[in-house]
């Protein structure tokens, strides 16, 4: 993306020293915790409810550290899917991180290898979205990495606490409460903001329909849904966009 060199209408904010950028990131994470904490509790509770040990359930939260993939892996583990399908499906769910990684890369180019690896480990939807908003504000690139670190570390900490609470709670919830539906509702909250774009809606409708098709072998339904949903959106994007117009987005 080319940087426009037009002078800003208002003076750009001065770069913050690392300590203050770190703190600004931590405070920016607070509004996100309303979404992060319930999701973490649900992930922990689902993992505990299928009979994983505390160590296994928590390992999902601190080693994988990706709520949607944790939920999907949990559901597939409970359904007895083959190991390779569980890993492959979890990976497809996490493919979006590649897109985030590419968008953040310019702001980490000057950082050490440890800084980049730590940044990668802590990458989440929330940390990415808020950092991108900050980048759009025209802040110094140098402080972006520190801001991101404060933001993502706080998110990580709350995710762990919420997961542990969920793991401890999970084994006590009676089946008659239909708590599995909480997972569907959490994903409804994740899906709604994505549906502003027509092609994103098509990807969702096709993906949902494919998931309802009679069980595919090896529980490959989610993989098939991702392939068909994204494929349909790409195809229609091609059909609907006149070939000569230079689409930039």
């Amino acid at each position, binding site marked *: 993306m080319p940087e426009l060199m037009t002078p800003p209408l208002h003076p750009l904010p001065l770069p913050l020293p690392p300590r203050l950028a770190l703190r600004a990131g931590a405070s920016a994470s607070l509004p996100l915790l309303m979404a992060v904490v319930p999701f973490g509790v649900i992930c922990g509770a689902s993992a505990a409810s299928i009979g994983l040990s505390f160590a296994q359930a928590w390992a999902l939260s601190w080693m994988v550290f990706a709520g949607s993939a944790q939920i999907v892996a949990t559901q597939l583990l409970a359904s007895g899917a083959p*190991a390779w399908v569980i890993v492959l499906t979890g990976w497809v769910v996490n493919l979006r991180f590649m897109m985030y990684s590419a968008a953040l890369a310019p702001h980490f180019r000057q950082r050490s290898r440890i800084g980049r690896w730590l940044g990668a480990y802590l990458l989440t939807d929330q940390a990415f979205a808020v950092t991108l908003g900050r980048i759009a504000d025209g802040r110094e690139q140098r402080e972006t990495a520190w801001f991101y670190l404060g933001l993502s570390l706080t998110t990580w900490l709350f995710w762990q606490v919420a997961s542990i609470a969920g793991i401890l709670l999970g084994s006590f919830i009676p089946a008659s409460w239909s708590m599995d*539906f*909480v997972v*569907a509702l959490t994903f*409804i909250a*994740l899906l709604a903001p994505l549906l502003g774009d027509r092609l994103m809606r098509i990807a969702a409708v096709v993906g949902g329909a494919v998931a309802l098709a009679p069980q595919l072998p090896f529980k490959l339904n989610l993989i098939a849904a*991702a392939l068909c*949903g*994204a494929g349909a959106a790409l195809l229609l994007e091609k059909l609907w966009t006149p070939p000569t117009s230079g689409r930039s987005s």
Partner: protein
Amino acid sequence: MDATYVWPIILTLALVTFVTRLSFLGLLAHVHLPNLLRRTLAYVPPAIIAAIIAPQVFPASAAGLPMLDWPRLIAALLAFAVAFRTRSTLATVSIGMLALWSMQALFRG
């Protein structure tokens, strides 16, 4: 659950997730993300999230076919309306669950 099956899955998933996150930050730091790949990656989340939701709203019958479950469908539609309006996970989950429980009580009684 069988630990010899669960631990390798968790460890492998953790590793591939980390490598995916690291991709352009570390390993491919000087590679530009191709436009087609970027757009494909953008379409995967709505497809897969909808695929996670759908079987919970239309649970499978014994024959493996999706069934119409009115309490779940009504609660899910209401939750969508709340999610669009409030963008709040907490509000979506609480109103959705309250709707499900009341609909279940209503349809049973």
